């Protein structure tokens, strides 16, 4: 038993829904009690889908448990097939139905459903989570439907892993499809997103697979490699370097040397241009799904010139590669699905920006730290109307904008530092291009914990004093004059400096000694 307030991932059957809702011509019969239909709104509201997810819920109630829940399943299954006439169905149980052990898969197989493929899902709700559910569901669909066949005449590939509710999947797939087309490679099938069961059947015609989303497509990629001889790409093309490496990897698979068209790529010059100088060494913390975090850490360090001060992921499946990368970046990896732990880590590290999920956006809001969203889970505002991939060369352009937007602009930083006491233009007003989202004055930020305290106790000041170092009042006053967006860093650096030298007190001099020490 584990106390949870917010979760990064839903249960595994929600992962199966992401696959079913992304596909066309597939229907999911879910043995589930009333209330589990809440999951429909994830798709209709957060992603603004204009169709109901293709899911039929059996809706059993307490009074059914004593008698017969099996016939409820059979009726729902028959009704769904009659009404929606799917090409194939997936059947499974939500967490409660798993406990009553009706075996939906077995029941569906004994029914006469007009010969359509029935794909049973075993998704252990009390052990695994949403990404596993999506990965496993896609794998089972591919395993059941993909048929051995000749390769296409022209070189082609499949794109694997895109689902409903994914972070920018719609646009990433379009961007990578265009990139591959430029290289002379056709996309045979992109799946699960927008694929039909008939499309899945012809996946083995492709020469290789592009795995864009390891979280939701890796089991299928491995299966296709082993059983249909299709190698798959391992590099996730997020950022300039990774996109170039991805093109190289595709070339290696095909024995060719590609030079992709980079005429639309703007990130390198935007990053090199002098206005970006102020981005140098900005301390960033990354958290999200493993694949996005690892790719974005590289973008942050090598393409934006930030300093990565910490990184982590909520999906344990990615713990190993993420730990390796963190070690290489000289930081500790945080592998947890407990958002309170993430919050505590961010508070401790006091980064100047967070690159995270919707959870970290809320954490950032509380701590007064700007946040760029780079990974699922995301909210409705992270499904933009405009084309905004994060993969490929256009994706790199989008990322530059995404990572700069939350920050105070370069010249504004200087002005705030110079005229920090101006009554209209003071630092607590926040970045001038974010009218409605300006951080509150620090005193107020400190007081917001008063509404009841978080379950780990009262919120601490965004940059709390170290346990055994005392700030003398003149130093404390000076610290408050430092603009909000660097105050946390200044406090942290000064305390670390004092601790290193065994100082018990921080005076004005210590503050400036530390400033000189950390000058860059």
């Amino acid at each position, binding site marked *: 038993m584990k106390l949870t307030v917010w979760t990064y991932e839903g249960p595994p059957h929600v992962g199966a829904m992401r696959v079913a809702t992304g596909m066309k011509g597939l229907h999911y019969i879910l043995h589930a*009690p009333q209330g589990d239909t*809440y999951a429909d709104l994830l798709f209709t509201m957060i992603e603004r889908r204009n169709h109901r997810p293709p899911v039929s819920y059996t809706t059993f109630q307490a009074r059914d448990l004593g008698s017969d829940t099996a016939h409820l399943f059979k009726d729902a299954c028959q009704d769904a097939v009659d009404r929606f006439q799917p090409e194939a169905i997936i059947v499974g149980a939500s967490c409660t139905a798993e406990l009553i052990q009706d075996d939906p898969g077995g029941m569906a197989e004994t029914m006469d459903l007009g010969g359509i493929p029935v794909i049973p899902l075993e998704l252990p709700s009390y052990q695994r989570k949403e990404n596993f559910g999506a990965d496993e569901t896609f794998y089972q669909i591919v395993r059941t439907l993909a048929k051995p066949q000749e390769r296409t005449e022209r070189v082609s590939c499949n794109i694997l892993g895109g689902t409903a509710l994914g972070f920018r999947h719609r646009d990433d797939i379009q961007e990578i499809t265009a990139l591959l087309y430029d290289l002379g490679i056709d996309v045979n099938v992109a799946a699960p997103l927008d694929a039909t069961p008939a499309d899945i059947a012809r996946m083995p015609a492709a020469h290789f697979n592009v795995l864009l989303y390891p979280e939701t497509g890796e089991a299928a990629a491995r299966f296709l490699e082993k059983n249909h001889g299709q190698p798959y790409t391992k590099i996730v093309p997020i950022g300039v370097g990774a996109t170039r490496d991805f093109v190289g990897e595709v070339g290696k698979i095909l024995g060719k040397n590609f030079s992709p068209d980079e005429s639309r790529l703007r990130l390198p010059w935007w990053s090199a241009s002098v206005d970006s100088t102020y981005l140098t060494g900005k301390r960033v913390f990354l958290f999200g799904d493993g694949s996005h975090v690892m790719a974005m850490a590289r973008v942050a360090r090598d393409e934006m010139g930030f300093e990565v001060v910490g990184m982590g992921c909520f999906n344990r499946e990615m713990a190993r590669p993420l730990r390796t990368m963190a070690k290489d970046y000289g930081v500790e990896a945080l592998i947890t699905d407990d958002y309170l732990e993430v919050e505590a880590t961010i508070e401790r590290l006091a980064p100047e920006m967070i690159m995270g999920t919707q959870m970290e956006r809320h954490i950032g809001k509380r701590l007064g730290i700007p946040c760029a969203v780079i990974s699922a889970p995301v909210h409705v505002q992270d499904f933009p109307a405009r084309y905004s991939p994060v993969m490929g060369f256009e994706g790199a352009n989008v990322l530059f904008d995404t990572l700069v937007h939350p920050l105070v602009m370069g010249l504004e930083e200087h002005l705030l530092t110079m005229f920090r006491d101006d009554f209209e233009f003071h630092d607590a007003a926040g970045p001038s291009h974010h009218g409605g989202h300006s951080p509150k004055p620090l005193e107020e930020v400190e007081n917001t914990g008063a509404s009841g305290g978080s379950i780990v106790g009262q919120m601490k000041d965004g940059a709390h004093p170290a346990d055994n170092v005392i700030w003398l009042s003149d130093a404390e006053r000076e610290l408050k004059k430092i603009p909000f967006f660097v105050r946390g860093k200044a406090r942290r650096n000064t305390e670390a400096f004092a601790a290193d030298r065994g100082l018990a007190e921080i005076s004005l001099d210590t503050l400036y000694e530390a400033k000189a020490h950390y000058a860059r």
Partner: protein
Amino acid sequence: MNAPTPPPGGGCRSAPVLKERGQREVFCGLTGIIWLHRKMQDAFFLVVGSRTCAHLLQSAAGVMIFAEPRFGTAILEEGDLAGLADAHVELDREVARLLERRPDIRQLFLVGSCPSEVIKIDLSRAAERLSQVHAPHVRVLNYSGSGIETTFTEGEDACLASMVPVLPETTARELLVVGALPDVVEDQMLALLSDMGVGPVRCLPARRIDHETAIGPNTQFILAQPFLGETHAALERRGATHIPAPFPFGEEGTTAWLKAIAQEFDVPPEAFAAATDAPRARARRAIAQASEHLNGRSIFFFPDSQLEIPLARFLTRECGMSAVEVGSPYIHDAIHGPDLDLLPAGPQISEGQDVDLQLDRVRAARPDLTVCGLGLANPLEAEGLATKWAIELVFTPVHFYEQAGDLAGLFSRPLRRKSLLKVEAAE
């Protein structure tokens, strides 16, 4: 001080009810925690459930309320399913840890879920045990918010019903208003009642455990929400008397509701008029303005919160709409009867749901406005039907005179928006 006139063609109380059983597109009772944890400022709601329960709670609110939620889910894991004794030990440990971290918590609700009900974790025993451990500082109660037992607002009903047996006894003749209302609305209501000379008035739930509400054989209670069937029964078991009334939506509903109290507490007509005349007139003006776009339009209710019948009464009688179908998850005659009496005959009254069949009916009827859950709203909009999300009716202050215009506005906004937009959705 006239009683509302029954419709000339008769009401809906004896109309045949279409009862359906099938897929239900509704929330489970856990959802009530979203507003209850804000209403009761010293309460914590601990759901004993699965990852699905936790995911529901964070999704149902639409936005996550990151400002210190006073709820959480103790997620059952593989090990808890194997040995139930261990589950109780684990629960005790989690509760102890929680209460240690949150000394401000005075009431703890252990909330049962589908999985905890199916594996039969006895939360009443756990609540008793934990009450002994943590008394007198913390009172531990339990109720079920599970989907196999409760539909959406029935979660609040189960929560309030769980409090009734532990409320202290009194012989005082007092008015008890039952049902969680937004604080601002509750204050307006208390002011109205005080102007009428009715008092003291007790509320269930109270904002804090210290505002103790007592009940007994002389307690007269009135429901402010139409989904409190179990609480109604629990109060009657303790000897309290129910004041039946239409629900306080709109000018007419509010007046009828207050009047039922006035009659019970012998409020003189002049005092009633003095307290209500001005706000009644204001409410009428506000409704007239806001219902301009509703007049002559048709409306179809999917079952959601049990607010459907009183709202249909308001929209048909005060806003000039006509109801095509009024669906409710459950209909209790003792509670919904007064509103059904006033609802003009005509609409199909339906109870329960088979969502696919109901969607067939709404597509055939093509009403001007459809009230439905979040899972159905965008798909119906994409088919050209204007919709109003039902959950907003539960999350927005809509009761009593001063909110009557806002309530009409909630329904007229989708229609106004539809008439304003000059772009067709690209497909």
